[in-house]
């Protein structure tokens, strides 16, 4: 019996595909997410929109908060650690959290290095804005990638930019002659063996979700149309007027993303979404964290 192997970690992420992972801050919200059909929840002290508002240093959620949420639901529970925070990661692993997000939404603990995620039995997801960043994280052991977007804004434009960037680069590698791979790998700062794997598979070697700005069922469908394997929704659910309806609608939109008639029905009578922010007017761009 081999636990915590690459196959087990990467395989677990495959089970989330075509699903929605929702940020929650209480047991009650976690139950709403589960009831709506979320494939997992992200246990947080505050949703990204509130982290943005509060400012200061954002850290791993409190243990009691994470435990409360783990006890409330039967679906997998994820939690975030600061970039490079080895101790926070070991604590969450000991707690039995199902997946760890080494996340730019929290204040980085290390401004040079990410975690060596191969060392852990628990799988990790990391943010990326382009193919190089995604493959560096996979090289460090991330079993899942999410494009970063700009968390807590309710503005999907950065999520779209990052998903298009990753997909464009994947398509480019797919059509690239072998002799160009090494130079290309050097340019994007990624290991050449992973670039070669992308060429062979025609996709990232791990599951790739969209994140950072998804606020409506149509946003979720858009990200699926651009090639996401699934969607993270942070502030978009519990900052909307009617979280129960919004959560259900986003889950259904991910299933029917290519059926406009069904999407129209799904998008009807769901209350207003969270308010959005203009990217140009932000003080902090969370997406710039990560090396």
């Amino acid at each position, binding site marked *: 019996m081999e636990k915590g192997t690459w196959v087990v970690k990467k395989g*677990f992420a495959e089970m989330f*595909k*075509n699903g929605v992972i929702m940020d929650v801050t209480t047991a009650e919200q976690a139950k709403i997410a589960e009831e709506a*059909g979320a494939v997992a929840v992200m246990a947080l002290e505050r949703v990204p929109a509130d982290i943005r508002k509060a400012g200061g240093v954002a850290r791993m959620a409190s243990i009691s908060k994470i435990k409360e949420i783990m006890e409330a639901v039967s679906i997998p529970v994820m939690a975030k650690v600061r970039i490079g925070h080895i101790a926070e990661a070991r604590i969450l692993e000991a707690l039995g959290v199902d997946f760890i997000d080494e996340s730019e939404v929290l204040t980085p603990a290390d401004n040079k290095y990410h975690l060596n995620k191969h060392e852990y*039995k628990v799988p990790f997801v990391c943010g990326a804005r382009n193919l190089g960043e995604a493959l560096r994280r996979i090289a460090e052991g991330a079993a899942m990638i999410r494009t970063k977007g700009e968390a807590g804004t309710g503005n999907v434009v950065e999520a779209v930019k990052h998903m298009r960037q990753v997909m464009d680069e994947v398509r480019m590698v797919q059509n690239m002659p072998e002799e160009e791979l090494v130079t290309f790998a050097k340019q994007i700062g990624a290991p050449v063996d992973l670039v070669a794997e992308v060429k062979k598979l025609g996709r990232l070697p791990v599951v790739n979700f969209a994140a950072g700005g998804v606020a409506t069922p149509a946003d979720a469908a858009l990200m699926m149309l651009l090639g996401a394997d699934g969607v993270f929704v942070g502030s978009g659910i519990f900052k909307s007027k009617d979280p129960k309806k919004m959560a259900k609608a986003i889950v*259904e939109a991910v*299933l029917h993303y290519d059926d406009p008639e069904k999407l129209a029905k799904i998008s009807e009578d769901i209350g207003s979404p969270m308010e959005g922010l203009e990217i140009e007017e932000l003080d902090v761009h969370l997406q710039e964290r990560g090396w």
Partner: protein
Amino acid sequence: MLKIGVLAVQGDIREHANMIEKIGHTPVKVKSIETLNEVEGLIIPGGESTTISKLMKKTGLWEELKRKAQNGFPIFGTCAGMIVVSKGIKNYPQQETLGLIDIYVERNAYGRQVFSFEEVLKFQEKDIKVTFIRAPKIVEYGENVEKLIEFKDAPVLVRENNILAASFHPEIEDDPSVHQYFVETIVAKKQVK
């Protein structure tokens, strides 16, 4: 060449479809009753059983599959799929199941993700490597349930007539033996009433 459906509402649909291709048959993604009626058998993949059940009900596939299964339509449920086809969930009795095979299961019985594992099992005299991911365990089964693989104190691959169910994921690694068994022993020889 048979058309084998893979329920495509949520989960690792691609991995099952790849296995079906690998053994020379045609995978078809099923998310509507119309496509369900075009296939010879259906795989319910791994994923989140709560999500899969809700979306099956929403699309009408829940009732339709119940009806078809009673007429002998072959179904193979893996991990979450096994939970969905079982008679009930001991530790989450409020979660509805299809009740197509006489087994009762316990969800996440082998522990949370850090306890997920790879294991080599004997199937038809052959070693196959499979993965258990937050896997369900069969804790009770009827006398007509055939135990095809056992691991420790529980059967992990079982069959009752047209229904096959596995605690583990046979689709994550490279060995297509279990898919081959489903397609060649159950689907190809089915007798639909």
